């Protein structure tokens, strides 16, 4: 615990001469002996006045495919920001496995440590080609010096080609990402996620703006990923959620409203009132 405190203090952003500390550049040894890979405990986030997360509690098991739903402003994205280290919560704790305090780490460490994230609005590096996008995301030494003199190994090439195939952008591999269609960008970003081969994937609205069969393929992809990866999907599209979800968590006003199988959720009166109610 005290060790963690130390890390926490040394990594504080306002620590000016932190760079004198050796950079803790490690693939995090995650301890998931109790099955759970992600704990969110009592997390609250407040943006001047407005309470985005209100004592949120959430726990996701390894290899699980978890869907998180909830009306706008329920705090879905904020939750992801907290987990990936973009937003520092005012209170609460976030653990990766039992042993790693994510609040003590920076984004890049969390990412290297095995938590990948896909944004709500697809963000790819538009001035780079599809190939380069995937190459950059690839799990490898990402220190400044090594990238300067980096050469691609054949294995890495084949890995990139595999992923390109998975996301079905073979013929676009040489294109600038900026010239892809919306759906293709979504796929590319998922592909970049795969290149990182993370333990946990946080996927924010993967099928927004996708055609029917694109949506279907995405669903298949995500389900296939679940198992050796843990997948957390935030989605509005109830049909999609129904099609893939095993376990669903409903957020409302920054805290968990209900959790369970899709059927339980749909039958839950509170959920119907605050959420499904709106839809019908």
């Amino acid at each position, binding site marked *: 615990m005290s060790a963690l405190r130390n890390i926490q203090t040394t990594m504080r*952003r*306002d620590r*000016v001469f*932190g*760079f004198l500390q050796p*950079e803790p550049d490690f693939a995090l040894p995650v301890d998931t002996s109790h099955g759970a890979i992600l704990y969110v405990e009592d997390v609250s986030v407040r943006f001047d006045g407005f309470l985005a997360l209100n004592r949120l509690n959430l726990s996701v098991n390894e290899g699980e495919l978890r869907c998180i739903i909830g009306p706008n402003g329920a705090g879905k994205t904020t939750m992801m920001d907290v987990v*990936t280290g*973009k937003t520092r919560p005012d209170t609460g704790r976030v653990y990766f496995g039992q042993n790693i305090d994510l609040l003590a780490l*920076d*984004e*890049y460490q969390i*990412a*290297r440590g095995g938590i*990948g*994230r896909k*944004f709500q609005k697809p*963000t*790819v*590096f*538009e*001035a*780079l080609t599809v190939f*380069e996008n995937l*190459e*950059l*995301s690839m*799990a490898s030494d*990402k*220190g*400044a010096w090594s*990238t*300067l*003199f*980096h050469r691609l190994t054949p294995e890495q090439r084949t890995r990139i080609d595999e992923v390109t195939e998975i996301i079905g952008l073979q013929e676009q591999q040489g294109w*600038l990402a*900026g*010239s892809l269609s919306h759906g293709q960008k979504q796929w590319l970003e998922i592909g*970049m996620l795969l290149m*990182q081969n993370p333990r946990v994937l946080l996927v924010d609205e993967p099928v927004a703006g996708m055609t029917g069969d694109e949506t279907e393929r995405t669903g298949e992809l995500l389900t296939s990923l679940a198992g050796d990866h843990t997948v957390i999907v935030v989605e509005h599209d109830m049909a999609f959620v129904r099609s893939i979800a095993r376990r669903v968590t409903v957020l409302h006003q920054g805290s968990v409203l209900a959790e369970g199988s899709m059927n339980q959720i749909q039958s839950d009166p509170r959920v119907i009132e605050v959420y499904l109610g709106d839809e019908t």
Partner: protein
Amino acid sequence: MLTRRLFLSDWGGITVLVLLLAMVVAVPYANLVLPPESPWHLSTYWVALLGKFLAFALLALAIDLIWGYAGILSLGHGAFFGLGGYAMGMYLTRQIGDRGVYGHPELPDFMVFLSYESLPWFWWGFDMFWFAMLMVVLVPGLLALVFGWLAFRSRVTGVYFAIITQALVFALMLAFFRNEMGFGGNNGLTDFKDILGFSVQARETRVALFVISALTLIAAYVAARYIVTSRFGRVLIAVRDAESRTRFAGYRVEHYKLWLFVFSAMLAGIAGALYVPQVGIINPGEFSPLRSIEAVLWVAVGGRGSLFGAIIGAFAVNGAKTWFTAAYPQVWLFFLGALFVLVTVFLPRGLVGIFRRRRTEGGA
């Protein structure tokens, strides 16, 4: 293989390099070998002028590297340019030795009449060329390292970064204006005698300096090319276009920015060092915010994000400046101002942008 990577589809760059090499050959010939009456003779005035442009081009290159590829706009690169220049100036001043007007064996003239007893510690070692050259890169590099670390670590970006770099260069200007600083105050350092034993006045030395500047510029260009075509370079573009995405891809963005910033600062320092012996004076004027912003304009005019564009821009704008201030002094500022406006509004990608095939480039 490497050369392929460096120059593939960089026709502009190749052209510029060829031109530079041509100058390296032609200028010495035209100045030293051809007799003055020959129509092709190039007077020393032009040699010095072109040499100055080369130094500016190097500065522009340094700015383009961070602005064009990492989206970091520094309005304070004059600081590094000036520091490099002062390091060189201090060396040249020490070379004067006892030939100063007061004939003091060690102290520069301005120290004699400000009645210094002995040489201040920060002047030690500058009588040695290698030490001075080391300082030319170290001092700007160090400043960039500390400043950059502070800034990038706390994610000071875009506009804020631009403004505090401006504050930095402004502070330096005020500081160097102070005579207590021991750098000659407003007068700066001047009346240099020789460099490495060659008289700085001699035409051969000037030509030599010109050649060295040109070669340095070429080397710097190749190095910069290497960086931007490496994976490092692609990370930079990623940072420029989608910084937080890059973070989530596991990159420590601030490190990339920092190292690039330091490298760029060092290039600027070298540019300053080449500039000083050719113009024969270094003074706090180099730190004036106007200078730094003007340098940014060179890059904007040439075309940001294409290294050779910066070189073209530097030559174009300074050429225009030389011509205007000689022909129509009053018009010059109007022209310069208009240039700023027009380029930013109508020509976001500069002269190069006209020729190059359209590429989607975001960022600032």
